[in-house]
């Protein structure tokens, strides 16, 4: 069976004025379904560009990207929006919940854009929040929630459409150590119990240690791709 992610010779070149800046210089990578991958690298190493491409937020300049058997490198903006809606869940460093909007409505958002029937929306959003232990908080707005709770709402939102891939971009960057551990435990449980494929960007080794495979970027290329034994850090 084809891996979930198949990337071959991926390039991303930005044009800044007359200058050409290659942020990604020929990246090839396979990620099988059910893997938990950590991506590390200094800022400017190309890992953010890579994550944007992986999340179908951007289009590569060259190369191919197949997600779940489908070529997604050359899709239109609206087609990419559809892929993001159905296949990919995002968790951001700064949570990115809609302000003054209840937790439940935040979680419903992908379902609204996915044209999920009305009754089903509420049931699924409630279930996703309950799975994050937030059943009693569904009518609270983000400003009434702690950082850890907000990030769990964000995870519920990312998972509510049952994506094939969860992309977490520094998910613990704005959290204290105890809460970071709490969030990483949530991700590990999702990976272990539900076989969720997770790609995690971080620059902290102890966070990366939760993953089973560590990819390191430098100057737009993958310089290391090593399996890690769980709990090695």
């Amino acid at each position: 069976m084809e891996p979930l992610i198949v990337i071959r010779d991926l390039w991303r070149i930005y044009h800044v004025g007359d200058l050409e800046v290659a942020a990604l210089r020929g990246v090839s990578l396979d990620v099988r379904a059910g893997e938990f991958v950590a991506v590390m690298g200094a800022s400017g190493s190309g890992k953010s560009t890579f994550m944007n491409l992986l999340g179908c937020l951007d289009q590569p300049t060259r190369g191919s990207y197949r997600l779940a058997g489908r070529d997604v490198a050359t899709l239109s903006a609206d087609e990419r929006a559809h892929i993001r809606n159905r296949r990919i869940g995002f968790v951001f460093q700064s949570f990115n919940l809609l302000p003054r909007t209840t937790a439940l409505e935040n979680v419903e958002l992908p379902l609204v854009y996915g044209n999920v029937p009305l009754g089903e929306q509420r049931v699924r959003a409630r279930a996703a929040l309950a799975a994050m232990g937030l059943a009693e908080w569904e009518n609270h707005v983000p400003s009434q929630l702690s950082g850890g709770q907000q990030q769990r709402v964000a995870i519920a939102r990312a998972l509510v459409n049952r994506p094939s891939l969860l992309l977490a971009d520094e998910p613990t960057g704005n959290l204290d150590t105890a809460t970071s551990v709490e969030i990483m435990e949530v991700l590990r449980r999702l990976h272990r119990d539900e076989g969720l494929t997770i790609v995690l960007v971080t620059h902290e080794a102890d966070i990366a240690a939760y993953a089973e495979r560590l990819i390191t970027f430098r100057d737009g290329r993958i310089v290391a791709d090593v399996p890690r034994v769980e709990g090695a850090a």
Partner: protein
Amino acid sequence: MNLLRMTLVTALRALRRNKLRSALTMLGIIIGVAAVVTMVSIGRGADWAVQQQIRSLGNNLLMVLPGATTANGVRSGWGSASTLSVADANAIQKECPAVAEVTYVKRQVVQVVYGNQNWSTSAQGSNPAYRTVRDWNVAAGRFFDDRDEAGARPVALLGQTVVDHLFEPGEDPVGAVIRVKEVPFEVIGVLARKGQTAWGQDQDDLVLMPFSTAERRVLGTQILGNVDMIFASTAVAGDIPAAAREITALLHERHRIQPGHDDDFTVRNLNEIAEASRSASQVMTNLLLSVASISLLVGGIGIMNIMLVSVTERTREIGVRLAVGARRRHILLQFLVEATALSMVGGAAGLLLGVGSTEVVARLAEWPTLLSLPAAAAAFLFSGAVGVFFGYYPARAASRLDPIAALRYE
């Protein structure tokens, strides 16, 4: 929530969040719509009042005046020559089939005295048909009849203005004896109030008497049978052009006017005058409407401005929506709905304000006003269109945001 409902809820929430800002943004639209509604109401009211005044002259009326509108290329006023006669009037009555009734008037400004009061007014002599042709009711007493006319009896009817100046309030003028140019007259009736003509003349300022009485006892004219004006009425409005043609042809013949020569009379169609005044007030209304529309336009620019601010402020929100699968048109629709909601709420408020200020104008300035439902509906819908038009550019800008840049926006 389904997509449309969410879009609507999001839009209303965004407007509620910045109440003061939303209210100020709406102000332009509110004023614009209110101005349109008020202007149209006042314009229609004025038009209605003019139509009423013209109708007060009598229904389906033609006026025949002596003198040409132009004589040898020189414009002269109406009634500048005495060329019409009672015989002309009688001929019109007999020989013009489109004409239903004919009356004629001879008048002069005279001094009227009652007790120690006196008043300068217009003495008018006419025949008994005057009442029906001018469609003028008698408020008290009676109108003069053929016997009064035949006997040249010294009887008179007074207009309300004359009654007001000669008699004490509550005093009954009927039966009183007044002196017109030193000639004693018995007041046999009072005419109902008619108000002003479209050209500002007080129709109630007159003493009306039989034609023969006026000719022999008051006016002292040299040439008998001369009249200042002939009124002809038709049974229906549609007969007026035919009646005008017939009267013109008849008078050409009677006055022996050669082809190519100027007429020595003028036939005025009152419906034409009504039409002219209607188009004049239409011009005025259109002028005011265009000023009001400028306010709507300025309001629309205000909406565009605030929507651009809103798009910038909510860049991150747009990024999140795009990330979780919103398409370009979803974002476009959301901001378009927000702009339209802004303008339509403003439009509704403007509608209420317009109805209110129309009422205030009607009460305080005592101008006639006439609310127009189609105009109000059009103003409201137009405010919605303004929202769509001026909301489109900011909404399109929002929908074209790059999701990555939007998510990273601080």
